[in-house]
């Protein structure tokens, strides 16, 4: 068994087994809404943006931000991870827990010739509130600071208030790059203004089955909203999980974006999914039960399984649980497995590094154990 390096600043190994708060099947509309997230992009005044800064400057920014974040009472307990010093599996774990982005885990490639090449050892880090993992602050990602607040269920209002309070505390000690015209100045002009992205992760298996998901996607695009998969930008909607988020950040205050999403758009999508579920139960009950039980059967008996296939089958099981078709599994257990079947979590649970084939075998074993299979 490979032991983790003994580093007191690193996450507790048990954290790898615990469900993160945002996957806890709690909060408003949790039958459809998995989680809500608010992200604020901020930069320090007087410094080049991350991709243009020299390594020395990035180190200065990192140190300045880290010192202030750790000395300000942002949360009861804050854990800091120097990502340039962390092994790949640790970084991947954080990506799977949605605490850092994929690009932050990798270290960003330099976008232009002539700017310093960024790589895995580029100075960058993340602060995470523990044990709830609601707050994470990425330092030296695309922007100097990316403040993220994530919670279970439909709770954008709570996320926004908490993220904004953290933002105020950070701003009390660090000068932000801000212009009265363009608002918070960000490396990419598509984030300028509020620098705020609000997103909601939805489980929409019934709309997927009925094919109405395309209508939702079209309607969202028409309203200038982005629809993305489980891991955000560029990822597929595995497990019937979709993230809907605002795309424009200039000209509309945070409160208006919040009201639109939380009080009107998302509840409508939720309602749409619920109606689709009721229709499936009413008109195609046996066919639906068949799909749910086949999924459960495959998960309980498979000997080898990939992460995407497992997520898709878990989606149907979760649908069955929520609709009361099956009662031997809980929605929370299905949510937790969504996380545990991911490569880094799986290797953490098993306790050693695994190649792809062994991951498939161990994944099937883990699922069988957790779902009472043979």
């Amino acid at each position, binding site marked *: 068994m490979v032991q983790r390096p003994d580093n007191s600043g690193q996450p507790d190994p048990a954290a790898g087994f615990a469900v993160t708060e945002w996957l806890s099947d709690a909060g408003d509309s949790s039958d459809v809404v998995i989680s809500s997230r608010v992200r604020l992009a901020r*930069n320090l005044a007087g410094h080049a943006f991350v991709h*243009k800064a020299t390594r020395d400057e990035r180190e200065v920014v990192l140190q300045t931000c880290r010192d202030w974040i750790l000395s300000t009472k942002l949360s009861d307990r804050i854990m800091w991870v120097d990502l340039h010093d962390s092994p790949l599996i640790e970084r991947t774990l954080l990506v799977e827990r949605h605490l850092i982005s994929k690009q932050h885990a990798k270290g960003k490639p330099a976008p232009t010739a002539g*700017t310093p090449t960024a790589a895995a050892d580029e100075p960058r880090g993340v602060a995470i509130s523990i044990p709830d993992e609601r707050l994470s602050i990425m330092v030296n990602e695309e922007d100097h600071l990316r403040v993220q607040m994530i919670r279970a269920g439909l709770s954008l209002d709570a996320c926004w208030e908490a993220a904004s309070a953290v933002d105020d505390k950070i701003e009390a000690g660090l000068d932000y790059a*801000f212009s009265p015209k363009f608002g*918070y100045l960000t490396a*990419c*002009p598509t984030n300028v203004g509020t620098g705020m992205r609000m997103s909601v992760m939805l489980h929409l298996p019934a709309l997927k089955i009925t094919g109405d998901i395309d209508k939702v996607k079209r309607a969202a695009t028409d309203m200038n909203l982005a629809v993305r998969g489980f891991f955000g930008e560029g990822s597929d909607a595995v497990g019937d999980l979709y993230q809907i988020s605002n795309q424009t950040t200039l000209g509309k205050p945070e*409160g208006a974006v919040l009201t639109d999403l939380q009080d*009107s758009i998302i509840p409508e999508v939720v309602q749409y999914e619920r109606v689709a579920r009721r229709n499936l139960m009413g008109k195609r009950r046996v066919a639906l039960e068949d799909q749910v039980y086949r999924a459960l059967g495959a998960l309980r008996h498979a000997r080898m399984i990939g992460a995407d296939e497992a997520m898709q089958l878990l989606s149907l099981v979760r649908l069955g649980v929520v609709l009361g078709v099956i009662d031997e599994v809980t929605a929370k257990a299905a949510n937790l497995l969504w996380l545990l079947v991911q490569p880094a979590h799986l290797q953490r649970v098993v306790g050693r590094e695994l190649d792809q084939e062994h991951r498939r075998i161990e994944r099937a074993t883990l699922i069988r154990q957790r779902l009472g299979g043979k």
Partner: protein
Amino acid sequence: MKCDRCDNDATVHEVTVRNGVKVEKHLCEACAAGEGIAGATLGELLTKFMTQESEATAKPKQAARVRPSACPGCGFTFEQFRQAGLLGCPACYKSFEALLTPLIERAHEGSTQHTGKVPKRIAARAAGREEDAIATEDALARAQLRERQERLKVLQRQLDEAVRGEQYELAARLRDQIRKVDVTLVAKPRDARERS
């Protein structure tokens, strides 16, 4: 129609009017290429048209300011921004304002003016009294209050509509949301008083 030069079918037709005289040319693709007239698909033409147009609309604004070759803050050029999709430093927004504004407008549904949160210290400094940050805080609290009131109004309207449409499930949910917002509405002004 035959090509003006050879026996092939003419596929490229050019009509030019010079000094009031109309000159027509009908050529096959090979002869047209020889004349330097390129056959273009509709797609290409449209792309050409769009870029020409956006250049045309960008130009007057551009001419109003001297086009900066590089940002004095970081040395980044607009060309580098185009390649990277990222600006070099906060000062780039000022340096390339004329060139950036149309792009920003397009990315943000026509908006070019920030409305929303302002860093407290910057707001206070703008008002010329850093020590009066508390006053700004109160202003922010008031703005928040207004925002909540606005939200309450929207919710109330949606509730009325839901009741009219006999969507009772939706109505119940909206009522819960209204209660939630209502509680914070009552709580906030008191908080503000306690602070001041």
